[in-house]
């Protein structure tokens, strides 16, 4: 880190926090602390919704995802605009008219207290798991760049987020997210610009995309259907829509954003803006990964992007030397073929382009084979292999094998380090600081939303409902602040355990998908099946969650489909049980 990087990093973070604190003065009542007094304009809610979803994981993991697997990850978001429209028609007016603090409060109005408690519990469990992962990602960044231990960096980010979240509540969270989104946009533009600038002399964006395209990395739309494939058009459109419906319609960390709106219209606009802006933003981030891939076609990438693991196998494994030789030779052949691919494209020579692309792909396969051998070497158990921590041991020991491997990622995974490695090695002074500000800011604003929503559900759905039903506004405000502090501390501990998981962006989506199908199903029942009563809905949620976990443990079905499976099982179970419950009710009345 050079002085210019420190100035930019510290300046950006201080600006974001001070601006947020200043705009959110006067959060002295429970309504203001949890719902901003329902005064937020649509544009602030829209940016807050996007900032809450775009955690640091987005910036760390997504370019790496594009580097190793291409742009097809963007299909994951194809169902999101559909979901935004459906929620604008259904959930937004229903929640506004019910005048609730949380989505789960509505479930008691519609069903009964135990269904509300069950669903609140599922949210706390699911969001509690995710918040650790969201905090862990940027802590890895700080740790890698500064050489500080990860537990110190986790604590540092957690403390800043807890500070303004506990003091200012949802208003502080949202007004902090507002300037951050502008910093993020600037950061993304600068990242793409500098990645292009670092390409060899005379090469531009079209050349970079040509090179990546020849390696199969330019694949944003894949129509081929496969149940086991995570990212194709159909899983993105259908599975992604169900996931987005659940995330934006049933997850308090998002529902709370648009519940702060002045009116139904303002809340709808915020969701529709997200429906329009999200896919281009993700495409842009994936494009950065594609350009980084092209850059590393001409500049030799490290065989492993996790530098400590690379050093370990370099110094301790005798098998490393021949693998490195194979890797170097394949890299040189790939570089030569890539130049021929670019030259053929410029000349418009289709035959030469096809021949050079074939040679390029062969060299790419050889390179990936050598890298695969290095990865297997790094994944071998032994001293210094930090993949053998207590958390992974626990998951692998106590969880069914099918589920454990999905949660932890199979073996060694350095996807999260691809973009970081590029930023640290090749970006100029000041730009590295901006990238870090973007990543730290993303972590702060995203986990602050999560802490805020976890605290809200803890106070409204558990404490106020089941522990202390009658108390003053000041008492609940103080309790909400304490709950925020508790969830901040919890996030710090969970982040320490999550640091060795696989691709973090996949893990966080997978964890969400284990629970979202059940949540979505119960809200579908609440909104559309007026005859279904509380006990049938409660049993439906239990059955839906059982079905999701069965699918995760016993099948290879891609996690996006868990949302569909869970929702369908909840609704169908409740519909089957509903007549039985109605008959019992009628008998009791007679």
């Amino acid at each position, binding site marked *: 880190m050079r002085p210019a990087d420190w100035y930019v990093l510290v300046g950006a973070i201080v600006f974001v926090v001070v601006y947020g604190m200043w705009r959110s003065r006067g959060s002295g009542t429970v309504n203001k602390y949890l719902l901003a007094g329902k005064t937020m304009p649509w544009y602030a809610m829209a940016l807050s919704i996007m900032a809450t979803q775009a955690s640091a994981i987005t910036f760390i993991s997504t370019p790496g995802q594009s580097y190793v697997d291409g742009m097809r990850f963007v299909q994951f978001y194809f169902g999101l605009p559909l979901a935004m*429209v459906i929620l604008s028609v259904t959930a937004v007016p229903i929640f506004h008219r019910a*005048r609730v603090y949380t989505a789960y409060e509505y479930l008691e109005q519609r069903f009964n207290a135990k269904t509300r408690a069950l669903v609140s519990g599922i949210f706390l469990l699911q969001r509690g798991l995710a918040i650790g992962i969201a905090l862990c990602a940027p802590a890895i960044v700080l740790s890698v760049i500064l050489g500080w231990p990860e537990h110190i960096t986790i604590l540092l980010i957690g403390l800043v987020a807890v500070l303004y979240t506990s003091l200012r509540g949802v208003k502080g969270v949202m007004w902090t997210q507002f300037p951050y989104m502008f910093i993020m946009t600037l950061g993304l533009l600068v990242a793409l610009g500098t990645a292009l600038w670092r390409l060899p002399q005379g090469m531009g964006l079209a050349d970079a*995309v040509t090179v*990546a*395209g020849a390696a199969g990395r330019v*694949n944003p739309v894949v129509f081929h259907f496969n149940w086991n494939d995570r990212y194709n058009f159909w899983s993105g459109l259908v599975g992604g829509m169900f996931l987005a419906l659940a995330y934006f319609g049933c997850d308090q960390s998002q529902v709370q954003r648009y519940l702060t709106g002045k009116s139904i219209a303002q809340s709808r606009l915020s969701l529709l803006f997200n429906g329009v802006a999200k896919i281009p933003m993700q495409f842009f981030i994936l494009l950065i990964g594609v350009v980084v891939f092209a850059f590393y076609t001409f500049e030799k990438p490290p065989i492993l992007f996790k530098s400590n693991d690379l050093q370990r196998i370099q110094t301790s494994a005798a098998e490393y030397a021949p693998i490195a030789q194979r890797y170097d030779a394949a890299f040189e052949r790939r570089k030569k073929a890539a130049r021929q691919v670019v030259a053929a494209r410029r000349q418009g020579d289709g035959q030469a382009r096809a021949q050079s692309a074939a040679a390029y792909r062969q060299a790419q396969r050889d390179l990936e084979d050598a890298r695969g051998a290095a990865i297997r070497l790094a994944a071998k158990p032994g001293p210094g292999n930090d993949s053998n921590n207590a958390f992974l041991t626990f998951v692998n020991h106590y969880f069914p094998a099918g589920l454990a491997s999905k949660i932890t990622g199979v073996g060694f995974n350095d996807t999260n380090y691809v973009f970081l490695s590029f930023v640290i090695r090749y970006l100029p002074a000041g730009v590295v600081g901006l990238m870090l500000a973007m990543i730290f800011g993303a972590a702060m604003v995203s986990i602050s939303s999560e802490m805020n929503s976890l605290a809200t559900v803890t106070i409204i759905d558990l404490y106020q409902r089941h522990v202390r039903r009658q108390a003053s506004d000041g008492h*609940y405000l103080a309790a909400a602040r304490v709950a925020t502090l508790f969830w901040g501390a919890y996030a710090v501990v969970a982040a320490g355990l999550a640091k060795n998981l696989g691709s973090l962006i996949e893990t966080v989506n997978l964890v969400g998908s284990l629970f979202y199908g059940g949540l979505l199903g119960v809200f579908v029942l609440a909104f559309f099946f007026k005859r279904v009563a509380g006990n049938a809905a409660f049993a439906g949620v239990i059955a839906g969650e059982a079905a999701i976990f069965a699918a995760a443990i016993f099948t290879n079905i891609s996690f996006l489909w868990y949302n569909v499976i869970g929702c369908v099982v909840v609704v169908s179970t409740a519909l089957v049980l509903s007549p039985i419950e109605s008959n019992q009710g009628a008998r009791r009345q007679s």
Partner: protein
Amino acid sequence: MSALRNDRHQDIPEEPPPFGGTWPRLYAAVLAFLAALILLFRAFQWAFAP
């Protein structure tokens, strides 16, 4: 009642969107944008396919 309780189920009037005329028209515009994006991505992929 607790300090947290509000009046439930108050009737909140529907407002038209500030642009786009009506809500259904705005929803249609969002979905049309999605379709256009997918077509653009497909064309992008086709242009740079190996």
